[in-house]
C-alpha cells in the first residue's frame, strides 16, 4: 500500500471528493426519505480546513449543493452536527435563543485511549491487532443491547480512521430523543466507572441485571484469546497484582501464593474463576456471592463510552467517509457479519485509493469512453478497494428505505380499515 503523507493532502483531497467520496448514498442517508421537509437543509455540517481552521454551522440546500461545496473547498475533515430549528448557515440572523438543535442520530464514540489502564501492548493514540479486539468486543456488546434491549433497528457502525469506532443510530424515533434520554442510555450501557482515583471500576452485586449477564456472555467469547493469551494479564507478578487488586481480600492472599505455581495466564485464571464461582454456588448458605471474575473481565474488556458525545444533541462527530487527516485512512462502515476479521490497518488510505485509481485508470477510461463525464466519476470508487465499504453504506440506506416503505404501507392499511 502506498504510504500516506499528510503533506500530500492538498493534492489528494480534490481527487477524493471528485472521484471517490460516495456522494449519492451519503445524500440519500442524510435526507431520510425526504419525509420531513427541509431535514437535509437544517443539518449542520462542519469542516476542518488546512491548519486546523474550523468552519462551523455550514448547511446546504441539497446533497448536490453539499457535493459542489466539498469539491470546492476540499475539507481535511467533515463533522456532522444536529438538525436545527433554522438553517445553520443563517444562525446569526435569528434570535439567539431561538436557534436550537432539534434532532440528531444517537451517536456513540468509543476511543482506544480510554482503555490505557488495561492495555499493555500500546498506549494513547497507538493501536495494534492485539488491542483492536477491544473495539470488536465493544461493538458486539453495544450492538446487542441496542437491538435486543432498546429495540433499535438502524445502526451504522463506522471505523473512526485512527483508534476507535463510532455508531450512528438512525431510527426515526431515536433521532428525536432528548439529551436526558441519550445520557440515560449511555449510563445504562456503562459498567466501568471512575477516573484515575478509582482502582476498582466495576462493582457488581445481586441481582445481576440481564444486561450485565448478557454482556458478560459476549466478553467471555473473546476473553481467553484476547486477555489471557494476547495481553497475558496474569503473566507476571506485576500484572497479576494489578488484577488481584480487584479481588476481595479473602481471595487475594490464597491466590497470590498459588499463582506462581501455575504455568500461565490461562491456568491462573482457571484457579481464580473456580474459587469465586464456588462462592456463588454456596450463596444462600450464608456465603456472600462474589463476582470478581466478571468484574475483572468487564474492567478489562467492557466498552468505555464517552458520555458527552452521546448526550448533547448539538455535539459534532466525524462523518463516515471523512479521511482521517493524521492516518489518511477513510472512515469506513463496519460489516457486523465479518467484524472479527476487520483489520484497521487494511483500511484504504486516501493515497492508496488514489494510486489504485491511477493504475486502474487507463483500462477503465477506454471501456467507459461512451459515457458522460459525471456518470463515469460517480462510479470511479468501484475500481478501488473503497467499493465494498460504499456498498455497506448503500445497504444500510436501502434497509432504512425498505423499513420506511413498510411503515407507509402499514399506515395506509390502517387508514383503509376505517
Amino acid at each position: 500500500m502506498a504510504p500516506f503523507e499528510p503533506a500530500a493532502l492538498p493534492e489528494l483531497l480534490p481527487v477524493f471528493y471528485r472521484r471517490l467520496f460516495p456522494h449519492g448514498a451519503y445524500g440519500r442517508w442524510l435526507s431520510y426519505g425526504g419525509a420531513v421537509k427541509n431535514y437535509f437543509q437544517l443539518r449542520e455540517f462542519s469542516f476542518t480546513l488546512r491548519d486546523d481552521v474550523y468552519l462551523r454551522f455550514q448547511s446546504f440546500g441539497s446533497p448536490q449543493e453539499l457535493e459542489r461545496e466539498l469539491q470546492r473547498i476540499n475539507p481535511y475533515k467533515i463533522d456532522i452536527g444536529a438538525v436545527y430549528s433554522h438553517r445553520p448557515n443563517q444562525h446569526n440572523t435569528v434570535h439567539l435563543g431561538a436557534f436550537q438543535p432539534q434532532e440528531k442520530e444517537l451517536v456513540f464514540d468509543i476511543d482506544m485511549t480510554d482503555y490505557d489502564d488495561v492495555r499493555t501492548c500500546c498506549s494513547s493514540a497507538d493501536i495494534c491487532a492485539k488491542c483492536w479486539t477491544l473495539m470488536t468486543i465493544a461493538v458486539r456488546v453495544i450492538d446487542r443491547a441496542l437491538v435486543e434491549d432498546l429495540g433499535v433497528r438502524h445502526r451504522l457502525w463506522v471505523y473512526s480512521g485512527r483508534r476507535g469506532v463510532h455508531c450512528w443510530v438512525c431510527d426515526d424515533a431515536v433521532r428525536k430523543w432528548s439529551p436526558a434520554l441519550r445520557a440515560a442510555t449511555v449510563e445504562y450501557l456503562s459498567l466501568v466507572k471512575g477516573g484515575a482515583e478509582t482502582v476498582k471500576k466495576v462493582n457488581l452485586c445481586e441481582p445481576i441485571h440481564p444486561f450485565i449477564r448478557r454482556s458478560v456472555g459476549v466478553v467471555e467469547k473473546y476473553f481467553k484469546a484476547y486477555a489471557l493469551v494476547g495481553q497475558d494479564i496474569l503473566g507476571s507478578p506485576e500484572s497479576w497484582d494489578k488484577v488481584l487488586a480487584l479481588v476481595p481480600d479473602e481471595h487475594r492472599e490464597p491466590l497470590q501464593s498459588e499463582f506462581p505455581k501455575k504455568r500461565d495466564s490461562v491456568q491462573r485464571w482457571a484457579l481464580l474463576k473456580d474459587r469465586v464461582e464456588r462462592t456463588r454456588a454456596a450463596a444462600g448458605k450464608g456465603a456472600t456471592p462474589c463476582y470478581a471474575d466478571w468484574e475483572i473481565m468487564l474492567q478489562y474488556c467492557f466498552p468505555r463510552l464517552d458520555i458527552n458525545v452521546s448526550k448533547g444533541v448539538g455535539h459534532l462527530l466525524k462523518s463516515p467517509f471523512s479521511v482521517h487527516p493524521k492516518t489518511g485512512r477513510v472512515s469506513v462502515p463496519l460489516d457486523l457479519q465479518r467484524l472479527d476479521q476487520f483489520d484497521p490497518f487494511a483500511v484504504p488510505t486516501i493515497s492508496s485509493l488514489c494510486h489504485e485509481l491511477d493504475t486502474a485508470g487507463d483500462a477503465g477510461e477506454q471501456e467507459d469512453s461512451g459515457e458522460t463525464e459525471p456518470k463515469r466519476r460517480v462510479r470511479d470508487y468501484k475500481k478501488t478497494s473503497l467499493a465494498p465499504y460504499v456498498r455497506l453504506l448503500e445497504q444500510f440506506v436501502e434497509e432504512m428505505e425498505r423499513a420506511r416503505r413498510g411503515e407507509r404501507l402499514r399506515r395506509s392499511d390502517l387508514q383503509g380499515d376505517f
Partner: protein
Amino acid sequence: MGPAVALRVREIDELWWHYPGHQTARRDGSGRGWPCAGSWGAGPGAGRPAGEMQFSSAQARGKHLWLSGDRRQLYPHSLQFYLEPPTEDISLSEFESLAIDRLKLLKTVESLGVSYVRNSDQYNSKLASELRKLKFPYKALADDDYEARRKDHISHFILRLAYCQSEELRRWFLQQEMDLFRYRFSQLTDNLMQKFMEHVDLSFEAISEDLKNELASELSTSTPGFTMSKVKEQMFYKVGLADAVDLFRARRVFIKDGFAYVPFKDIVAIVLNNYRAKLSKALALTARSLPSIQSDERLQPLLNHLSHSYIGPDYSVQKSTGKISLEQIDALSVKSFPLCMRQLHKALRDNHHLRHGGRMQYGLFLKGIGLTLEQALEFWKKEFIRGKVDADKFDKGYAYSIRHNYGKEGKRTDYTPYSCMKIIMSNPPSQGDYHGCPFRHSDPELLKQKLQSYKIPPSGITQILDLVKGMHYQLACQKYFELTHDVDDIGFSLNHPNQYFTESQKLLSGGREPKKEVSNSGNTQQKNNSQESMNSNSTPTSSNTTTDAELEGLEAYFTED
C-alpha cells in the same frame, strides 16, 4: 416594608400585564397575569391538544367556584404538579410570608437530606412535623385542608420567581421541590396514588399474566427487591423509555425492545421524573420572562433577598479579583483549597494537562478566588506547554475556552464556579479525569491513603470515611476543613468550594483577606464582570436548563480523535 405592604399584588399584576410573552396568555382574561404560567405560554385553545384545554377552563371555573364558596374543587388532591398559576389577589405582606414559610420548608428538606437517609423513619417524621408546623399539607387524607393546599400552591409559585434566575438557583430549587414531592407522594395510599396519576394523565397499561410469567425470571433479576414470588404478586406496567428514564438509567428495571417493565411500586419514579421534567421546563420559561419581573422595583429586592439569603452567594462576582498572584497558588492549594481543587491542582502540575471536566471545574474555581483572565491564560499556558501541547495549539484550542469561561467568547455568559452540589451530582469523572468530588468519586481506600499522606490523624480519617459511607460528602469535606484548620466546629454549612477557600483564608489570616497584588486592570475587570453577570441573568437560557451543554466551549463539541 413600610406603606408598600398595603399594596395589593393586583396592582403589580397590572404591571405584569404589559410584559411581552404573557400578554397573549392573559388577553382572554382568565388569569391575573402571574408571570409563571405552567409549561404553556399561549392562550387557551391556541394550538394546544384538547386534553390540556380542561386546565384553562378549570382555571377560569376555579376562580368562579372559589367566589361561590365551593373551594374544595380547586385543589382535588393534597399534592399537585403546580401546572396552574394562582389567580387570586393577595397582599404583599402575605406574598412575603408565604414565600418565607416555603423557604423554611425547603431549607429543612435540604438539611434533612444531608443528615438522614431519604425515606427513613427519622427523615419522614421530621419532615412531617415541619410541614405541620408551617401549616403545609402533611396528611394525604385530610380532606378539609384548603388553606394548607392554597398555601402550598401560591408559595410554590412565588419561589419559582425567586429561584428561576440562574442555573445554580434552579438546580437548588428543583432538588428541594423534588425531595418534598417524593416524600409527599410516598405518603399516599395506593388508591390515592392511582387517583392522582389519573388526575395528571399518567396511567400505564399493565402487562398480561401470561407475559409476566414468561418474563418472570428476567423481571426478578432486573428489579431490585423482587423475588420470583413477589414478581407473581405485583402488577407490572409496560412503559416507554422516556417515561422510565431514571429507572432505565440506573438499570433498576427490565428493558426489552425499547420498553421498560415497571412494577407498581416503581411507578413513583416515573411520576417523579415526569414532575421533574415539567418543573424544569416551567422554571426555564419563567426565567425567560425574568426581565419583566426584574423591572418591578417592589418585588425584585424581595425576590433577590429570598434567593440569596437561602442558597448563599454564587461566587460569580469577584470581590477578590486580582488579589492572588500566580506564585501563591501552590502554597494556597495546600493550605486553603478544598480536596477536590487540591487534587486537580496536583494533577495539573504532575501531568501538565487536565481534561475538559477538570479544566472547567478548576478554571472556574480559580476565577472565583480572584484570578483575572490574563492570569488564567498565563497560568494554564505555562503549565500546558510543559506537556504535549505547544504554544500555538494552546492559543488555538484551549485559550478560547478560558476566555469563554470569563464571558469573552460565544454567548458571553459570565460563568459561575461550580457548587458542591453540581460537582457531586453532575458529570462524574471517567477514565483519565481528576475532577469531581474526592469524597464522592474516589475509592475509599485511596481516599484513606491520600488523607494519611496529608497528615490527617487516624481518628479523623475514620470519621471522614464514615460520613462518606453514609453518602454525606459535604459533611465529610466539612470535617476535612475542621481537621486541617484545627477548629472544632466551623460554624457554617459547606456547599461551595469557593466558600471553603474564603472561609479558610479568613481563618488563616485572622479575618484579613489575602495580600493584595497591586493591579489597576484588576479593578476594571471586576466592574466588567459584575456588569456581565447581571446581563447574563437576564439572558434567556435554552429550554433544557439541566443540560450542561451551555457550559461547554467550542472545543468540547469536537471529539479528540
